[in-house]
């Protein structure tokens, strides 16, 4: 800030004023979150409580956000990266060490989310929401046991040609690795070869590979779709025979976390916001809007009834533990990329 002020010529100041630049950023906060993921009531409440002007913009993927932030000077204060992306961004020095673990509301954080591999002890980030990536099946179409990845890779006749996979390299390949019982982030060439064959074989039974899972399921274009649990809940509300699977081979868990950029123009307001969302009633607002769990103790008291009983949100006791996948080394990503390109050739 101070360095910048020295260099400012009057012209630049004038232009900055015109453009509403963060040069005069008193009482502002710029949030960059996944699109349609932030509860408007939460923002309203924060505005009212702290008299801060908030702008909210959305991104479509961790990678888009990273590309922008890496170049610097985005003007954003708050970002909400996924677990692996937090680790990447800490490593690249893009996040400010704001010490949430010393904040007032940190006591509300569920202890199981404190010592996580992407931010041990929580010096940089706090949970926004977490969920799982598995799949949803219409139980009116397929009557058998749905808790197996075999439905994706060796589907029964009634599901052939009625399957949507996520258009996501990692989600598809990870599911394949789990089905064959291999490790994630796997550089083992022989094992990857088997995965490639598995995927190539299964592809003929897939109808589509697309992110818009809710539309696919509710319109009846497919009867099975790889899915996130919150989206699965929304789809079920419109097609009640859908059921979210907890495959015995395992499934992905993920957590999006609130963090502050190291070049945030409104650092103090950003810290206020981080503390703010750890209050149970505020965390509940987030969940009620986006339909995922939040990791704050006591937020259940403020949550919608529908969420507390939803089988997509409340995991059954016998389900495997969700697997939070670490970022893979570049050589592995290159191999994945080759498999993916061959799959979609």
């Amino acid at each position: 800030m101070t360095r910048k002020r020295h260099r400012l010529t009057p012209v630049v100041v004038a232009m900055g004023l015109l453009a509403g630049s963060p040069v005069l950023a008193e009482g502002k906060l710029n949030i960059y979150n996944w699109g349609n993921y932030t509860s408007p009531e939460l923002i309203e409440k924060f505005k009212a409580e702290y008299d801060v002007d908030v702008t909210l913009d959305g991104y479509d993927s961790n990678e888009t956000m990273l590309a922008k932030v890496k170049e610097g000077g985005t003007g954003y204060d708050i970002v909400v990266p996924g677990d692996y992306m937090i680790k990447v961004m800490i490593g690249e020095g893009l996040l400010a060490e704001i010490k949430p673990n010393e904040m007032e509301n940190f006591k509300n954080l569920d202890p199981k989310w404190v010592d996580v591999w992407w931010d041990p002890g929580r010096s940089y980030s706090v949970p926004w929401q977490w969920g799982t990536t598995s799949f949803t099946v219409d139980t009116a179409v397929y009557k058998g046991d749905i808790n197996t990845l075999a439905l994706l890779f060796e589907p029964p006749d009634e599901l052939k040609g009625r399957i949507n996979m996520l258009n996501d390299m990692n989600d598809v390949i990870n599911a394949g690795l789990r089905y064959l019982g291999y490790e994630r982030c796997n550089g083992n060439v022989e094992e990857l070869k088997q995965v490639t064959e598995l995927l190539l074989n299964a592809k003929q039974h897939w109808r589509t590979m697309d992110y818009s899972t809710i539309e696919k399921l509710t319109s009846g274009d497919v009867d099975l779709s790889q899915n996130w649990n919150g989206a699965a809940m929304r789809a079920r509300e419109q097609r009640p025979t859908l059921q979210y699977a907890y495959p015995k081979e395992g499934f992905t868990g993920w957590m999006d976390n609130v963090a502050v950029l190291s070049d945030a123009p409104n650092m103090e307001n950003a810290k206020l916001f981080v503390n703010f969302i750890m209050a149970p009633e505020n965390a509940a607002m987030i969940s009620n809007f986006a339909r995922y769990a939040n990791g704050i103790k006591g937020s259940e008291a403020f949550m919608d009834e529908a969420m507390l009983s939803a089988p997509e949100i409340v995991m059954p006791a016998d389900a495997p533990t969700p697997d939070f996948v670490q970022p893979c080394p570049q050589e592995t990503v290159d191999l994945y990329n080759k498999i993916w390109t061959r799959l979609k050739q």
Partner: protein
Amino acid sequence: MLAPVQDTSNETRLARARRLRDVEERRTRRFLLAPALLVIGIFGLFPLTISMLYSILTPGTYGGVTWKLSGEAYLQFLFERDIFDGSLSLSSTYLQIYGRSIGLALVATIGALILGFPTAYFIASKPREQRNIWLFLITLPFWTNLLIRTYAILLIIRDEGIINLGLMSVGVIETPLNILYTDGAVFIGLIYSYLPFMVLPLYASLEKLDFKLVEAAYDLYANRFQVLRRIIIPMAKPGIVAGCILVFIPGLGAYITPELLGGGKKLMIGNMIALQFGSSRNWPFGSAAALILMVVVMAALLIYVRNAGKQGAHHG
């Protein structure tokens, strides 16, 4: 400039006048070209240079590049390092993706031309005061978002969509046609998305069509087809070319339409390149693939412009 030899003969004076005019013309031309070239030069060519640079560097961890020169990106395009033994072999993977995209863009261009030409002609032959209204009506659907429009198309062509229900109720077909999530759906989507890009330039050049020529041709007992082929189409040629370019090139890089309507099971150039900047984390390869595409398209275009220029000179 050479000092002109003083000569009072008419010929040299004429030459001098011509030279003066040339100088002035050049000045005007420079003035006219400056803004476009400057803006694109700074905000288009600079970024292009950056991506050229990217294409010869090494991928950074988690996206971006590291400053180490490498030709691997270009190598990767044509050859494949075998996943399993690391040996290089000629690979058709990317060529196949390019081939499919080019084919689809080409078919969509032809489709758009077949639909767009009569439409543009229809508008151009309307009374003058109505033309802008028609033109506006053609572009109005495109003021709504592409994604939303694509969802609407999806509703029309799905198995239980309007087309299938309609055809089945009339009894033309018994089982629904499977259009959605096929190349056919992508084709429909592309034509739809790019139709105005064809109609507008076509209209711009058809609008100045002199119908007296048409009349004269009829007086000479030409039939309608001959008139179309010998008079209307040649006059509309600049518009046809412009329209085809504006449909073909964006069609090549199309991204959302193939994904949503095609089902996303096959990669197109656009998705393949975007993937490199996303989860594949290989910016150099993404840049290289894009530059290769650009060179191919640019070369085709320049060859065309050269030839067209020569042709024009003949006419003149």
